[in-house]
């Protein structure tokens, strides 16, 4: 806090100090005379950005970085608001993968292929599917990937051993995965997964044709009655019929308790969950886990962070903002540092040769799982995004619940979903 001599003389109220502090801060050198970049982010991306500031200072000692961090949803709401009016846009905007698609369609973000950004020259340095995730329908690349979330299957080795299920049995095919689940339930009583929805979420991603989105096709036609949805629903129903899912939602007390007690045998998730399990969700289960590739050679992405520049951001700062983004995403050291401290799996290909990947992970019983996850990034394919994807997800989840809880027929459920989606596909 700043000293203010004589401040109390004027107001003598509780608001004297903050008001004066604000006034003085506005006049402090560094805020007005030198340039400053504003970076809007959310936890834990804010830590990653802050960690990059020393490196930035070496390159541009006169340019300060101000990090404005908000809660995850609040941040994206604030960004939506700012983009809608083009006021007070940050110089650099962090976006999570779920929102990048939406914002990309909107046209409020700079197309980074254009000068002075010219992402084309560095594009090849990133994991291809991550760049594809930030590409709009018209081919504009609106954001740069900073970290990605390769999908993985985390399994409890002790539970598997007790049930006599081998890893290959578990992952050979999705039907085999479910069958192993039956065995696990019978012998150990543990559930195969947290919720039947999890298997549906992966299975609808298998068999997507190029150019197709998850729920909608290239021209907005509704795809939810296609075979991949039917298979997803059928297997989810199978899981529920055999009582293989614990019916708990992620990030609930029951879910984390399931990990602690070993009543959840596997979890389909992003690689980063291993770090959280180790740190605070279930630290006592260290060593009892292993990471496997998803069954049947499937690959999926769970999360990812991108940095973008808004069209309406202050023009004078755009060149510098681009420099900062390049630093965050192309600097090998910073990417590895974020990986080591925040479990942010790098999107930068040149980091992939680092020995850190071969290091054993204690939580996973000494497995060098990062190698496997690195391999997964090579095979993951980006899925085209449609404006109504968030709505479609809800509708499908609702229909799935009806199939699972009320025994609704799968084909009818999907047809109902298609009907709802068709009405909105063109909005």
């Amino acid at each position, binding site marked *: 806090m700043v000293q203010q001599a004589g401040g109390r003389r004027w107001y003598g109220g509780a608001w004297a100090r903050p008001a004066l502090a604000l006034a003085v801060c506005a006049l402090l050198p560094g805020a007005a005379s030198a340039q400053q970049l504003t970076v809007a982010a959310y936890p834990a991306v804010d830590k990653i950005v802050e960690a990059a500031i020393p490196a930035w200072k070496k390159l541009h000692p006169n340019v300060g970085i101000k990090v404005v961090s908000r809660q995850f949803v609040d941040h994206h709401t604030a960004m939506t608001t700012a983009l*809608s009016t083009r006021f007070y846009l940050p110089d650099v905007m962090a976006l999570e993968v779920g929102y990048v698609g939406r914002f990309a369609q*909107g046209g*409020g973000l700079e197309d980074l292929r254009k000068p002075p950004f010219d992402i084309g020259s560095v594009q090849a340095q990133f994991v291809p599917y991550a760049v594809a995730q930030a590409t709009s329908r018209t081919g504009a690349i609106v954001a740069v990937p900073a970290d990605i979330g390769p999908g993985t299957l985390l399994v409890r080795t002790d539970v598997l051993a007790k049930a006599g299920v081998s890893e290959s049995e578990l992952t050979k095919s999705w039907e085999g995965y479910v069958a192993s689940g039956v065995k696990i339930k019978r012998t150990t009583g543990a559930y195969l997964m947290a919720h039947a929805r999890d298997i549906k979420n992966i299975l609808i991603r298998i068999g997507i044709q190029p150019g197709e989105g998850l729920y909608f096709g290239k021209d907005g036609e509704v795809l939810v009655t296609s075979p991949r949805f039917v298979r997803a629903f059928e297997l989810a129903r199978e899981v529920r019929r055999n009582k293989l899912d614990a019916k708990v939602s992620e990030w609930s007390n*029951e879910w984390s308790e399931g990990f602690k007690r070993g009543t959840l045998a596997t979890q389909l998730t992003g690689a980063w969950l291993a770090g959280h399990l180790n740190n605070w969700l279930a630290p006592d289960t260290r060593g009892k886990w292993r990471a496997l590739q998803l069954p049947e050679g499937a690959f999926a992405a769970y999360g990812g962070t991108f940095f973008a520049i808004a069209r*309406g951001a202050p023009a004078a700062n755009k060149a510098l903002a681009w420099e900062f983004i390049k630093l965050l995403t192309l600097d090998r050291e910073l990417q590895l540092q974020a990986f080591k401290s925040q479990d942010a799996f790098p999107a930068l290909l040149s980091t992939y040769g680092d020995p850190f990947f071969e290091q054993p992970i204690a939580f996973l019983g000494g497995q060098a799982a990062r190698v496997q996850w690195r391999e997964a990034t090579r095979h993951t394919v980006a899925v085209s995004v449609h404006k*109504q994807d968030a*709505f479609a997800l809800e509708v499908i*989840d*609702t229909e799935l*619940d009806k199939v699972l809880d009320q025994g609704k027929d799968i084909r009818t459920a999907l047809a109902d979903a298609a009907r709802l989606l068709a009405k909105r596909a063109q909005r």
Partner: protein
Amino acid sequence: MRRGCWPSAPSAERKATTVKLPAFLRLSPEVTPYVLMSPFVVLFFVFGMFPLLFSLYLAFQTWEPTSGLSAMRFVGLDNFAFALEDEWFWKSLKNTAWLAVASGVPQHLVAIPLAVFIHTSFKRMRNAVVGAYFLPYITSTVAIAIMFSSLFSTDYGVVNTALHALFGGENIDWLGKPENIKPAIAMIVFWRYVGFNVVLYLAALQTIPKDLYEAATMDGAGRLQQFFYITLPSLKPMIFFGVTLSIIGGLQLFEEPFILTGGRGGSDQSGMTTAIYLYRMAFDFNDFGAASAMSWLLFFLVVLLTWLTNRAFKPRNGGG
């Protein structure tokens, strides 16, 4: 309520200052209301009108917000037509109605007798008891979200433990099953606002003159009779006020279902009130035009219901 003729007795609170205002500041009774209203009116027009008009304008446009203001396109009544044909909109209205009634009615049914009871039977402990009931209103949504997910947890939540101890039977899956989400939300809303209504009714009870009750007792009226013939009628304006607030609040229910269902509305959208659906339309599905149109449809509905309440409860003194 017009009182009898009361002389202007000097009350203890009268300020000792007898500074006379300069002539130009002495207002005539005709001008006074305008002067008194002016700060409110100014603020209202600046901060209340523009959003209102903006929202009205937006209801006739289609707009994806991240494209910027210039991306609005006029579509006439298309948004309204869409809303009226939308299954989810009607579902949200049904949810909202159910929740408004299920959480609103018990609030008042409990708050009135409770306020009367506290008013008459607690002298020293009054603040503590009122405080206990009012505390939920103070709690922030962040804290409520975490606590209630924990309390309503299926296997170990306190709610299920208590129910199990009292009634036995299976543990209820509050947050997972559609049919249970609504009662859970109603319970939270009740928990949060019953104390608020108790405070309102207590404030109103304090304005009822004691002599009315003394006279009634001398006439031989019992407690229950006094409650129905003195207390309730005197509380009518406050009941009107409180019920109107509950209706408005109930129809706009947003926070409690939002935090309990993580912003989604829960399984089968059973916890999705219209306000939540509006929010999702605007910020999740990025369809601001439809969201505005729906908010105006909701508005008309609330106006209608408020008007009906007004008719039912109209204070017979003719208002102000």
